Structures are given as structure tokens and as C-alpha cells.
């Protein structure tokens, strides 16, 4: 029996490699080694875990759950590999056990870079890289009062955000003149910094070099800056970058540079040994993000699993689309305009967005943004494909922040080779193919293609693709059942008004005098002003969608409250009118209220049942009823004002 393919490393790249290889050759025996005691997890979500936004269960690697039961896959967790014998084609673990391999894949990743600062080796100084670090930091976070994070890169910022609690002060110390200096230009960085510092307990110090870490009796007590200033703190997290784990390869005599050197097939200098992910150095470049690693995993798996595979790795464009401290940040390529007559840059900014594109000879060589930019995928595509940016596109970008017109923005219009999911390098073509072959649910599509399984930022695009392709089963919106109920009752009450005659006036003064509610002027004033108040409040609720500053309770909840208050309004309206529609202005007002209710309830149904109806129908129904709801609301303020005015006028 032939020796298996051995994979060292259970990070996302190693796991991805296994599943890619199984896809190419399901009968290939695979052995995978991990040096952590945990089940493999999704490293990208560690900061969420640290912030306690997600639980332990939520960070497990979905792909792992599938492959660990695979009959041809053997796994050794908590089993570090200590030596490679490349010539003899076997490896040795820390207990001295030897494992022969047919092909060896090194996905050993990287470790935090610890700068040589005095005092860095003492207690109270942490790194943030793996689950062990998370555990340590979580334990520490209970007692810490002031944390210094060294490094203002992505990871540093995320760590700061995760550690910042109401009683914990966090200071980020960045050596460069701006945060995320690899991804963002000056202005964008300043904007992001302002956003981060809006958090009450975070402050950022740029252009500050750390000379030493102040040593205390038990643990570090502060950070000494070059200026001599000492920032007192009880916890220090070092987040100054990563170094590839190349030592294992180095010991085995494999060529290394910054990382383990690989060729276009991701093969190292040793026969049948591959390296992928953060530990690999391709054409003098190492990549610190997950997406290139996954790309490499797929190419290596193809090369190993398929004879005469033609897949070549050509390097990755370092594009990052990240949620940094709650703010969407996108970056690709250059961050500053090259000093050249052929280079141009365009900037668009408004209250919530900063976007910048850098062109060289008409082609985008860099772009970054702070704030949601729904075109980021297309920009990436533009960079990768080397297409030129037309002057009207640049002009449109300057005025509206959009490179593409609305029609172009539709993901369905994208070319097949455009990448939808950046983390997993899933193209639009792959997705449509998968959809057409039966992955009509978001979950199955995501599992099969890997799209939207990492950071989730492309979920809307994937959903959009799903909803427009073939027979669909789409994701229901949040609280859709409650929304149906609210819409149903709204419709019922509206129809009660429209279809039932006014409640007949009683023929006797000796009977119950319910009707005094809609006859007596005192009662009518009470119900009338209640209606006014409700109307105002309900209108205010719809601002939840538009006002960014107001973010208490999710939008879906407010939508239910909006609808429920609408029902209350209709009920008060019954006591105000006794179901009489009135005449002239009053009739117009009543009709306005009812049509608005009906359109609202229709919109509610359309939204709640969108995942069940035909895509086009659902979309157009939603659009029509939403605009109807809006359109018929416009006369309401005027009619209501004049109704009240006329009541007192006459």
C-alpha cells in the first residue's frame, strides 16, 4: 500500500487542502497533523470570540466537520511534527513516531512577530494568534484595566476592539504614521481612526516607537516610548506582524527565504514536499491573509491529486475586505499614488464613506475605502483583469462614489470570472454553476463552493445570485413569521374599514353608549390626538433605516414594532370614527390611512414571504408595495394637519 499524503497544519489552509484533494481524488489516503489540542477552528473569527460576540461552537471549521469523518482521512491533533526526512520521505513527531509520506504538504502557517524590545519576555505581555492566546487573554481581560496594543495593523485593531470593555482602557501604539498603513492611505486611515476612537475606551497613538516594556515585580507595568514617555498599563498585546514558520523546513534542508520557498506548483526545493499558506514564499512574497492561502491549497491539491494538472499559482492580489471595529474596510493594491505623470487618483467622500482609487495609465492599481462599498468585488475584478477605467466611470465615481451604474452593479451582470467571494476566491461562474446544479439554498451553496463561509461579507451578493438564478429557495428575513402576523392583522383591520359599513348609530338613548366614543367631542379629541402621536411615532420608526446613528435594536425588530403600532393606530381609528369613512377631506384622510396600511401590509407580506415566492414576483411586489406605502403616506401630514385645523375652525 502506498504511503498517504501527509498534511502538516490544521489551519484553514491545511483543512482546505484536504477537502480540495478529496474533491479531486476521494480515494486518496490522507493523514493530517495539528499541533494544537483543539479541533481545527476558523482563525478569522478569533477576535469575535475574544470579544465574546460568538461562542466556541461558532468558530469551528465547517469543512473540518465534513472531512474528519472521511474514511480516507486520518488525523493527529495535538501532535507536533519535529523533523522531516525529505530524502527518505518520512516525518517524525514529538514522540519519535515516524510517518512515511508519498507527498508532504506543509501548511504550518506563521507565528506572531516579537520585536526585540527589552522586557518583552515577561508576564503580562501577550500575543494574539491562536486559541491558546484567546484563552489567556480572556482570562486576563477580567482583571485588566489598561491594555496597550503594540501595532496598529488589522489584527492590532481587532484585538483592541475585542479587549475594550466598559472598564478597560485600550491604547493602540502604532509605529507608522497611520493605522493599517499597508492597506489604507492617510485620509482613509484618519477616518478609520476617528471611527475607532469614537469608542469610549480606545485611543490610538501613531508614530510612536516602543523602546522597552517596563518591568514590574510580577508583571509588566507599562510601555516606554522613544520620547521617554511611559504609558502605564497592566496588559500588553504584541501585534506587530507575523513571521512564517519556516524552521521545520530549514532543518530539513529545504530552501527558505522569508518563508519556505515554493515554485508555481507550490513545490519546495525538496521532492514531493509542498508548502502553502502563510509559511510559503512565492516569488519572494509571503501572504498574511487567508485568501491567497486557500487559493494555493486548491492549486497544490490539483497538482498532487491530478496527473498532468496545468494549474499554476501566479501570486495573489492582496485585497482585503474586512470589518474593522464595526467599520467596513476594503483595500487592494497600492495605497498611495505613485510619483508619475501617468498616475491619477480619485477620491469620493460623504458622511459615511471614504473611497479612493488610484489609476496608472487608466488602470486601477490600487483602491481602498472606509465604509460600505458594494462595488468592492467589482473593483477587485477590475484590478485582476487589468481592464481600463473609462473616463465617465471615473467621473461618476467622483460625484457619486460609484464606478458602475446601477445596472452594472447587479451581481448577475458580472462576468463569470469575477470573484464574488474573496476569502475563498469563488467566482461568479462557479457559483452560478453550483446553483444550476442544485445548490439552491444559501447553506448548501456556501458549503459546496465555500463562498461566504469565512468572513461573510459577500453574503448579500451570493444571496442576490441565488435569488435570480433558476428555482430558488432563499433565506427568509429575520422575524418573518411575526412580520406575516403583523401584516395579516393590518390587512384585516384595513379591510374591516373598507368593507364593513360604519357602525350603525343606536336607535335608543337607553342602550350602551359606545358610540359616544366617535360622537362626543371630548372622546374624539383624546382619540384624535392619540392618532396624531401614533402617526408621528410610526413615521419616526421608519427613520431607523435611514439614520445610521440610531442603531438600538435590529431593524427587523423595529419593522415589527412599526407594523404593530400600525395595528394599534387602526384600532384607535375605529374608536375615533366608528368605522365611518367620512366625506371629502376626512374621506381622503381615511383612505390615505387605509391605503398606506394596505400597502404596508402588502410590503410586509412581500418581504416575509420573499423566500417562498418567485424571485421576480417577490422583488417587484416588494418594490411596488414599498413605494405604494411611501407614496400614499405623503399626503398624510398635510391632510392630518388640515383635518385638525378644520375641526377647530368650524
Amino acid at each position, binding site marked *: 500500500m502506498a504511503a498517504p499524503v501527509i498534511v502538516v497544519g490544521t489551519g484553514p489552509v491545511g483543512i482546505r487542502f484536504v477537502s480540495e484533494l478529496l474533491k479531486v481524488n476521494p480515494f486518496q489516503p490522507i493523514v493530517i497533523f495539528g499541533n494544537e489540542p483543539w479541533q481545527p477552528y476558523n482563525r478569522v473569527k478569533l477576535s469575535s470570540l475574544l470579544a465574546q460576540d460568538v461562542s466556541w461552537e461558532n468558530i469551528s471549521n465547517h469543512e473540518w466537520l465534513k472531512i474528519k469523518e472521511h474514511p480516507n482521512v486520518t488525523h493527529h491533533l495535538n501532535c507536533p511534527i519535529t523533523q522531516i526526512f525529505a530524502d527518505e520521505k518520512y516525518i517524525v513527531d514529538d514522540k519519535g513516531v515516524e510517518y512515511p509520506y508519498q507527498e508532504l504538504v506543509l501548511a504550518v502557517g506563521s507565528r506572531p512577530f516579537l520585536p526585540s524590545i527589552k522586557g518583552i519576555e515577561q508576564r503580562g505581555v501577550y500575543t494574539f494568534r491562536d486559541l491558546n492566546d484567546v484563552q489567556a487573554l480572556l482570562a486576563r481581560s477580567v482583571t485588566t484595566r489598561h491594555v496597550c496594543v503594540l501595532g496598529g495593523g488589522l489584527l492590532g485593531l481587532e484585538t483592541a476592539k475585542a479587549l475594550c470593555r466598559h472598564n478597560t482602557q485600550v491604547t493602540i501604539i502604532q509605529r507608522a504614521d497611520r493605522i493599517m498603513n499597508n492597506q489604507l492611505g492617510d485620509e482613509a486611515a484618519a477616518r478609520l481612526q476617528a471611527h475607532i476612537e469614537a469608542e469610549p475606551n480606545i485611543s490610538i497613538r501613531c508614530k510612536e516607537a516602543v523602546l522597552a516594556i517596563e518591568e514590574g515585580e510580577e508583571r509588566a507595568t507599562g510601555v516606554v516610548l522613544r520620547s521617554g514617555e511611559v504609558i502605564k498599563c497592566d496588559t500588553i498585546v504584541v501585534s506587530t506582524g507575523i513571521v512564517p514558520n519556516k524552521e521545520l523546513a530549514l532543518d530539513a534542508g529545504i530552501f527558505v527565504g522569508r518563508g519556505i520557498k515554493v515554485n508555481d506548483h507550490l513545490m519546495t526545493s525538496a521532492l514531493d514536499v509542498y508548502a502553502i499558506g502563510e509559511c510559503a514564499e512565492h516569488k519572494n512574497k509571503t501572504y498574511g491573509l487567508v485568501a491567497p492561502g486557500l487559493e494555493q491549497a486548491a492549486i497544490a491539491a490539483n497538482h498532487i491529486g491530478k496527473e498532468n494538472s496545468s494549474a499554476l499559482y501566479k501570486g495573489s492580489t492582496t485585497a482585503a475586505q474586512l470589518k474593522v471595529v464595526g467599520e467596513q474596510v476594503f483595500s487592494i493594491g497600492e495605497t498611495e499614488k505613485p510619483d508619475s505623470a501617468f498616475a491619477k487618483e480619485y477620491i469620493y467622500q460623504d458622511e459615511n464613506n471614504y473611497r479612493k482609487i488610484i489609476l496608472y495609465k487608466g488602470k486601477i492599481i490600487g483602491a481602498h475605502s472606509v465604509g460600505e462599498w458594494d462595488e468592492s468585488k467589482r473593483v477587485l475584478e477590475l484590478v485582476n483583469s487589468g481592464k481600463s477605467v473609462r473616463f465617465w466611470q471615473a467621473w461618476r465615481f467622483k460625484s457619486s462614489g460609484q464606478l458602475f451604474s446601477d445596472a452594472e452593479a447587479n451581481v448577475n451582470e458580472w462576468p463569470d470570472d469575477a470573484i464574488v467571494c474573496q476569502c475563498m476566491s469563488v467566482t461568479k461562474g462557479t457559483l452560478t454553476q453550483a446553483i444550476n446544479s442544485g445548490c439552491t439554498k444559501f447553506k448548501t451553496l456556501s458549503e459546496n463552493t465555500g463562498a461566504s463561509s469565512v468572513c461573510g461579507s459577500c453574503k448579500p451578493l451570493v444571496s442576490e445570485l441565488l435569488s435570480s438564478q433558476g428555482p430558488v429557495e432563499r433565506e427568509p428575513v429575520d422575524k418573518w413569521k411575526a412580520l406575516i402576523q403583523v401584516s395579516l392583522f393590518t390587512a384585516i383591520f384595513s379591510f374591516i374599514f373598507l368593507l364593513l359599513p360604519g357602525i350603525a348609530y343606536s336607535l335608543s338613548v337607553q342602550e350602551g353608549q359606545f358610540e359616544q366614543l366617535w360622537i362626543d*367631542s*371630548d372622546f374624539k*379629541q383624546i382619540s384624535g390626538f392619540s392618532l396624531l402621536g401614533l402617526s408621528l411615532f410610526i413615521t419616526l420608526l421608519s427613520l431607523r433605516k435611514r439614520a445610521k446613528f440610531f442603531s438600538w435594536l435590529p431593524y427587523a425588530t423595529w419593522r415589527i414594532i412599526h407594523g404593530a403600532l400600525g395595528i394599534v393606530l387602526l384600532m384607535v381609528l375605529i374608536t375615533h370614527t366608528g368605522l365611518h369613512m367620512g366625506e371629502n377631506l376626512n374621506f381622503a384622510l381615511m383612505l390615505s390611512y387605509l391605503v398606506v396600511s394596505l400597502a404596508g401590509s402588502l410590503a410586509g407580506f412581500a418581504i416575509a414571504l420573499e423566500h417562498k415566492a418567485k424571485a421576480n414576483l417577490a422583488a417587484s411586489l416588494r418594490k411596488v408595495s414599498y413605494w405604494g406605502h411611501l407614496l400614499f403616506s405623503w399626503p398624510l401630514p398635510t391632510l392630518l394637519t388640515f383635518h385638525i385645523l378644520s375641526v*377647530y375652525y368650524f
Partner: protein
Amino acid sequence: MKKLSLSLIASTIALSVLGLSACGDKAETTGIAPKQFTDALHLVMDSDRAVYTKKVVGRLVKEEKVIKASEHFMDDKALPLPAQMFRFGSEVVAEKTDEFSYSLQSLWPINKQNAPRTEMEKKGLQFIVDNPGQNFYGEEELGGKKYFTAIYADVAVAPVCASCHNDHKDSPRTDFKVGDILGGVVIRVPLG
């Protein structure tokens, strides 16, 4: 209307409070006590009606026999009865002022709407019947307002008073004699 007038009412109250505190005690010392006021009113009413009863109705109907007096004086082209004359006067007063009001009531009313209605009226009418020669005074609250209420005995001054009350088909009592108390004049003055 209520809401609009509310602020008006509020400012009126504020102004009148200011006004009151400005006038101070002076207004109280120069005013007439309600009792004095109603006593005087009653004296005028009583005298006028006595004149009408004797000098007009009594003379023209009984002595000179030139005209009749009738409850339906319009249809019958006759004189109004003294009690009607008294009531019409009170209605004219009601149209012109709300500074005071008065009515003619009885424990044995011909028209049941003229029976006592409020507790004070019931008590007062009984009081003047039980205590001939005395008036009744009291204070009561009606419709959220305070009133000084005075009740004066109304006596059959002429035989025709008694006979008319005895003979009317709606009269609950038929044994009145001249000098008997037929009912009472109720005068009300709003307080405060």
C-alpha cells in the same frame, strides 16, 4: 375647542387671581351678604305678584268681571295666572343673567317639574312648612358650582289662590285655605 380655550381659561384664572389679590378685602367689605340680597329680591317678587294678584287679576276677574284669567291665556285671550306671571319673570331673568335665579316650587306641585329636585330644595320646602314664618337658608353644590340657596314660604294670599290649587285636576292636594303655605320661592346666588 376645549384645548384652545384651555389656555384662555388658564390666563383668565391667572388674571382674576391677580385682580382679586389686588382688590383684597375691600371687595368683601363693600359687597352685600347673599342673604341680604335674596331677602331683598324676594320682597320685590312677592310684592309685585301680590299687586298683580289683587290689583289686576282679582279686580278684573272677580270684581269687574271683564276678563278671565287662564292657564292658556293666549288661546283663551285671558290674563296669565299670577303664578305664571311669576314664572315668566323668572324666565326673563334667566335669559338676561346668571347672577341669580329663582323658581316657584311646591311639595304639592300642579306641574310635577316644579316639585323640589335637589336635596336642599326638599329640605328647605319641608322646613318652611314645618316652621311657619321662618325662611330657609343654605349652601349647596350643583354641577360643580357652589350656590347660596334661600327658600321663602309662598302663601295663598287670596281665596282664588287656594281655590285654583284645590280645583286643578293635576293638584295633589285639595284642601288649601287662604293663608296656607302653597309652596316656596327658591332663590339661588352663585358663590365665588
